[in-house]
């Protein structure tokens, strides 16, 4: 069985896999920054008392979470040009991942903020802090700590989701696997290799999560 497995083809395609890996890393990183921005704005809207900001944020989050990422991606890639917005596929890809992941990030941040005990808000209110001071000095620094691990979890999901961009011909890691699979008809070699690279990225992010956990654990976060 293994005699059919061509390590040599993998080695020959390594430069291509390397380029794909680099593309996956930087477009994921960029998308994650975008997702953080989208998430923070959505979360801020969602935490308002009035429905004027809250309702659209909730509707957006529900819409994103209820529909497949592939449908969202195809809408942006095939749908938007018909509506008059023509964007390069890389931009569409990063936009799709940011907008999609942002909805999840918004909920993660919201959960982090809501996990801060009521007494923290009351203590800062009682000392005469304004809303902005309370958020900046008391609530967000604490919410930040509880939010880091789930955010890194979301980053792992985002890296895997970025594989879908191969379908709009972005030359990322999965696309490299597809090329080996189709050029030489070697799907086992192609897809096993990219799986190994995704696993590598996963362990990097997981290591980062563990590192941040240890770093945050030393700052006397618990009561």
């Amino acid at each position, binding site marked *: 069985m293994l005699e059919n497995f061509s390590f040599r083809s993998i080695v020959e395609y390594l430069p291509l896999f390397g380029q794909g890996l680099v593309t996956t890393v930087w477009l994921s990183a960029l998308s994650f920054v975008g997702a953080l921005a989208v998430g923070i704005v959505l979360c801020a809207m969602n935490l308002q008392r009035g429905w004027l900001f809250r309702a659209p944020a909730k509707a957006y989050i529900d819409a994103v979470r209820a529909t497949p990422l592939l449908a969202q991606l195809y809408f942006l890639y095939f749908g938007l040009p018909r509506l008059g917005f023509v964007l390069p596929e890389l931009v569409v890809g990063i936009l799709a991942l940011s907008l999609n992941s942002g909805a999840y990030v918004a909920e993660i941040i919201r959960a982090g903020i809501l996990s801060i005990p009521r007494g923290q808000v009351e203590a800062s*209110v009682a*000392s005469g*802090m304004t809303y902005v001071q309370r958020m900046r000095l008391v609530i967000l620094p*604490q919410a930040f*700590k509880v939010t880091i691990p789930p955010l890194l979890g979301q980053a792992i999901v985002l890296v895997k989701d970025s594989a879908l961009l191969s379908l709009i011909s972005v030359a990322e890691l999965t696309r490299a696997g597809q090329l080996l699979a189709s050029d030489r008809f070697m799907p086992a070699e192609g897809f096993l290799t990219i799986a190994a690279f995704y696993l590598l990225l996963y362990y990097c992010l997981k290591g980062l999560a563990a590192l941040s956990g240890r770093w945050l654990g030393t700052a*006397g976060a618990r009561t």
Partner: protein
Amino acid sequence: MTKTGMIDFRGVNKWFGELNVLKDITLSVEPREVVVVCGPSGSGKSTLIRCVNGLEAIKDGDLVVDGQRLGNPATNMTQLRTEIGFVFQSFNLYPHKTALENVTLAPIHVRKIPRTEAEKAGRELLAKVGLADKVNAYPAQLSGGQQQRVAIARCLGMRPKIMLFDEPTSALDPEMISEVLDVMVAVAEEGMTMMVVTHEMGFARKVAQRVVFMDAGAIVESGTPDEFFSHPKTDRSRAFLSKILRH
């Protein structure tokens, strides 16, 4: 104009849904006066003092604090709160800040006192509550009694005119209660205007000018500590005292 106290409740009412948690409260606390509020759980005593700094809003009646009427649009609540220290049953220290940072946070950011000055004052306050050696400790590294003393220092750092205490020793182990009460006595003896929800009779007898007994949202009885503890006038206060004095 009628003479007003530092804290003036006039016919204050408050509801939680159908529940009338404060019933027609009229009570005046003079400057430098220490008033102890006691009563069975659910009697509205915590709600009463939480109204003073606006953690709870009143429904009707007037509540005037330091000459400013609460609920009046002209009253700047954020500003007024800087004059009122509030000590919680559960301390509510900021867990991500050291003891000193807990004490200096509001002075620096709200009072706009220069950092070096605020830190100097903060160290002095922590020394005053007996925690000079815990300046750089995080709340999680402190005992309950120590945390509550930091919380009191945190309030004093704002140089407030009024201090409110909401069952400050109820969450503490018995051996830590006196260290907190000692600090409160010292604050009272410096002439602070205080409202204290507590059942600590020793504290009440030592520093309170008045004890107010509440039941079911209303003030049932009020008098000097000696009058109240030795000669309670109503059946309800007698029943209450017999319960807290049993052991």
